[in-house]
């Protein structure tokens, strides 16, 4: 399982980190099907879409709705 930092979102309530998670095991097909995780205040939540993960990161940190 590969997990790379994708984005860091800073807002008045703190910093959330978005990770992109991919299955890079030998048995996995060569197709790319990533998921995204949001880490904030010690908890990690997984999402299937990039947009939802970033939106959550923005909302939990109180960051503005842009990159």
């Amino acid at each position: 399982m590969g997990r790379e930092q994708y984005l860091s979102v800073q807002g008045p309530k703190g910093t959330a980190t978005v990770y992109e998670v991919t299955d890079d095991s030998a048995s996995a097909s060569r197709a790319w099907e990533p998921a995204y995780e949001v880490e904030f205040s010690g908890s990690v939540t997984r999402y299937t879409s990039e947009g939802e993960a970033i939106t959550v990161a923005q909302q939990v940190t109180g960051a503005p709705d842009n990159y």
Partner: protein
Amino acid sequence: MLSPEMNDRLTRVGPGTPGGELMRRYWIPIAPAAQLLEDPVRKIRILGEDLTLYKDKSGQLGLIGERCAHRLVDMQWGIPDEHGLRCPYHGWRYDETGQCTDTPLEAADSSFKERINIGGYPVQEMGGLIFAYMGPLPAPLLPPWDLFVWPNAVRQIGVTVIDCNWLQCQENTGDPTHGIWLHGYLFQYVLEKLGEEQRLRDLGDAFVKNSVGIKGLYANNTEYGMEKGVVFSKELGAERDYRSRHSTVIFPFYTEQNAAGAPWSEFQIRVPIDDTHTYHISYGCYAAPPGIEAPKQDVIPYYEVPIWDENGKPVLDCILNQDFIAWWSQGALVDRSKEKLGRTDTPVIFLRRQLADQIKVVEDGGEPMNVFRDPATMPEILFGGGNPSNEWVAPDWVTRARFNGNNNRLNYHKGGAERESDRYGAAVPLVAELHRRIEEAQKRGVVTV
């Protein structure tokens, strides 16, 4: 989501931009050759550069600077000479390299012309299209992508200028599920409004049924670009567990629907005119099955696909036009820092990364993918979408028909060519003639369905 900086990097195509430098490593289709039969001199804007395309009386093609060096007259009004193009104002003549070769009203012993060059780019013709190469020399080989050179087929070329950035058009190919709504529910809505009941029945649930059982989307690299599709799950309501492959991307700006040998296949080519305009080419190829001779074409005809009807309303009763309106309505150059990508956009992200990676390759002094230089290893036909499926090129028409019969867009026996944007094309009667020959052969038992 892309940062504004990355968005610029991927989308802008002018000289000196990262994306523009990548684009300048490729042969770019700039016009149907048939256009030069109507008028041998044309103004062309490509990658943000204004140029003049011409064919001289000897048949030599040229793509040279926009204006005569003398008094800056627009060369689109030039006069083709035996060798080169003359400015209409005072007759200065330029060859295909942009070199001035004659200044008829200057002194006979003047060497003025030798000091004048307005620039020129190499051009070549293949499959009824004229291609330009605008990058560093020497130019690479012009790739014989399959639909351009597949034998025994009818072809036609649909062209449209769309007022938006090229990447918006190309990202459509990285988006396999848009068809459920754009070509499904919207199509049904449009046909209902038009009162086209028969077409509505024929359309049926061809697209909307794909909304059921989606587990996820996938993307992966191919030798020449990328492929992607939808993973369907029986557990989630699909008929079975399977992966549905969508059209293929041939890097950087081709989409291939089906493949050479299919009853209908198409390149959709998204050529950047500049940062906010795209020259869209729908290159249709209608292959004859084994044992049938396709009607001959002396010239591959072109046609303009209208975006708007006579009342200024968008034409929405065919698939390609539905796409056009979606891309155009995103804006001239969409700000991707404001988008919210869903799970269906996984292949879009993949497509952007492939583009970003190749831009970096060029920046680092390397050769990007799909640049070919060795004639000895270049095949006569390059299957950009991968080797064609047996279902598409099977020697028996039964196998092909089985594949093509389950898709309303591909089944031209049911009138697809007349109903899609292909209907605007001059080759539609030839496609009908091809199908008449097939049916006749079926009756004679030469081919069986």
